[in-house]
């Protein structure tokens, strides 16, 4: 398959653009593979890519229940950042950001990664202290962070209300300049195309209905397209984790499924060139390349397997947008939707061998999975290929909940709807 390049665009144009091929094949499943990845979302596809690229394992199938990118990879607000506090998280997300920085070249696919920075606003002296602590933690661990004061905020975001008339006046912000956004669908398509080119079979409309077992060991999967055997089976199904794992006889996990809503406004001229978050509540907003404002807030806060939410959160989110940017009150909302989040009990993910022999589990991304897509796949591929975690995901074990080594970034305890 042709590499995408400026030269290729010219060459194809001369041929009337009739020579472009689909970005990935649509193969029928083979009877057996070395590795099966359940879930053709961002994490599953990136795992397949890194299995092939880093470990030379190309006899791999990615099984997707719906169409490629139909889950959270196509539903998120596209923010990429690594502004974490705790030791277990910072190196992992920093590695992810480094992979993002070269991702378009690595995949030969433009994922439109735009390092437009993220600014977390703070409104109280206590929040300012917390921001300083987090910024220092990021810098000490090799990341980037700086304070932004209201005069600079006003210059960079003219629409932002930094006046002292605001209900929660803005004292400043913590900026991570290397953070930004990426085109989420392109991430799924780019990983799919790159994995496919190395021989990975991407099989859509193929639901895993059960697991083939030899004693405890998982040796294959039953699917809507028949039985497929595998030496190793990795599960990366985000919000559907509990239901898929139930099909393997695992009834209880430190996971709850919750709905997160996202919103898009009508398009407007460029007016916001960073990602910015509100510290007086929970809101993150950026402007897409099409001109729409893309934003979201908290999860609805009750267990949900429905890809739609309720109105109290809509009202909350809108009031926060208007508190930050009073002029946006005139905008009309174009779309809203929901995605099912795999909320873990401590707000941190799980990338691990097991819980059954021959099985590997990648879950618990809460609502921060998009930014982790490259490192999640990188670490999950390592875990599957070597049968042990990479140092970057060693702390993301399933056992940590029973060993007292939780990574609770927000200090909320075991209330997954509050992370």
């Amino acid at each position: 398959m042709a590499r995408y390049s400026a030269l290729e665009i010219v060459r194809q144009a001369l041929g009337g653009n009739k020579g472009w091929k689909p970005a990935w094949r649509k193969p029928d499943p083979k009877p057996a593979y070395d590795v099966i990845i359940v879930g053709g979302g961002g994490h599953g596809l990136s795992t397949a890519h890194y299995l092939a690229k880093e470990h030379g394992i190309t006899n791999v199938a990615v099984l997707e229940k719906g169409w490629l990118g139909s889950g959270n990879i196509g539903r998120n607000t596209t923010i990429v950042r690594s502004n974490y506090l705790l030791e277990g998280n910072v190196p992992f997300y920093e590695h992810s950001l480094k992979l993002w920085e070269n991702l378009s070249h690595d995949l030969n696919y433009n994922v439109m990664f735009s390092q437009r920075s993220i600014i977390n606003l703070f409104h109280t002296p206590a929040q300012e202290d917390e921001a300083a602590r987090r910024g220092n933690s990021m810098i000490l661990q090799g990341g980037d962070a700086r304070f932004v004061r209201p005069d600079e905020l006003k210059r960079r975001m003219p629409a932002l209300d930094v006046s002292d008339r605001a209900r929660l006046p803005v004292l400043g912000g913590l900026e991570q300049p290397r953070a930004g956004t990426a085109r989420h669908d392109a991430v799924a398509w780019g990983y799919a195309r790159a994995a496919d080119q190395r021989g990975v079979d991407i099989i859509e409309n193929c639901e895993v209905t059960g697991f083939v077992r030899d004693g405890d060991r998982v040796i294959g999967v039953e699917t809507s397209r028949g039985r497929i055997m595998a030496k190793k089976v990795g599960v990366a199904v985000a919000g559907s984790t509990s239901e898929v794992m139930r099909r393997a006889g695992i009834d209880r996990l430190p996971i709850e499924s919750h709905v997160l809503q996202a919103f898009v406004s009508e398009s407007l001229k460029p007016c916001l060139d960073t990602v910015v978050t509100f510290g007086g509540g929970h809101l993150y907003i950026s402007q897409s390349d099409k001109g729409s404002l893309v934003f979201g807030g908290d999860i609805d806060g009750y267990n949900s397997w429905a890809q739609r939410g309720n109105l109290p959160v809509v009202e909350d989110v809108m009031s926060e947008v208007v508190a930050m940017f009073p002029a946006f009150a005139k905008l009309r909302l174009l779309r809203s939707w929901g995605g099912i989040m795999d909320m873990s009990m401590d707000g941190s993910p799980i990338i691990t061998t097991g819980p059954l022999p021959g099985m590997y589990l990648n879950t618990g991304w809460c609502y921060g999975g998009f930014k982790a897509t490259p490192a999640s796949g990188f670490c999950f591929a390592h875990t599957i290929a070597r049968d042990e975690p990479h140092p970057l995901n060693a702390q993301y074990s399933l056992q940590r909940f029973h060993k007292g080594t939780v990574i609770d970034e927000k200090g909320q305890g075991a209330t997954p709807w509050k992370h």
Partner: protein
Amino acid sequence: MRIACPHCGTRDLAEFTYHGDAANALARPDPASSDQNAWNAFVYDRANPLGDHDELWQHAGGCRRFLKVTRNTVTHGISATEMLGARS
């Protein structure tokens, strides 16, 4: 989503506070027990069903009573609501 509070009547979701999986909360181990596995399972492990889910809600914006609500996690349809700790 609206919840029918047995004390106050049907009220908007915004009046209620969520307190999680009721089956889990009501199956709390004996406080005198030092069974580590039972306590870990109680604190961290959840069934997280797709379909009917028993859950605790407090009518914080109303009578402040705790309710056990059986709600479908796909349709949000509520099939039963029961007041907990009712006084005689």
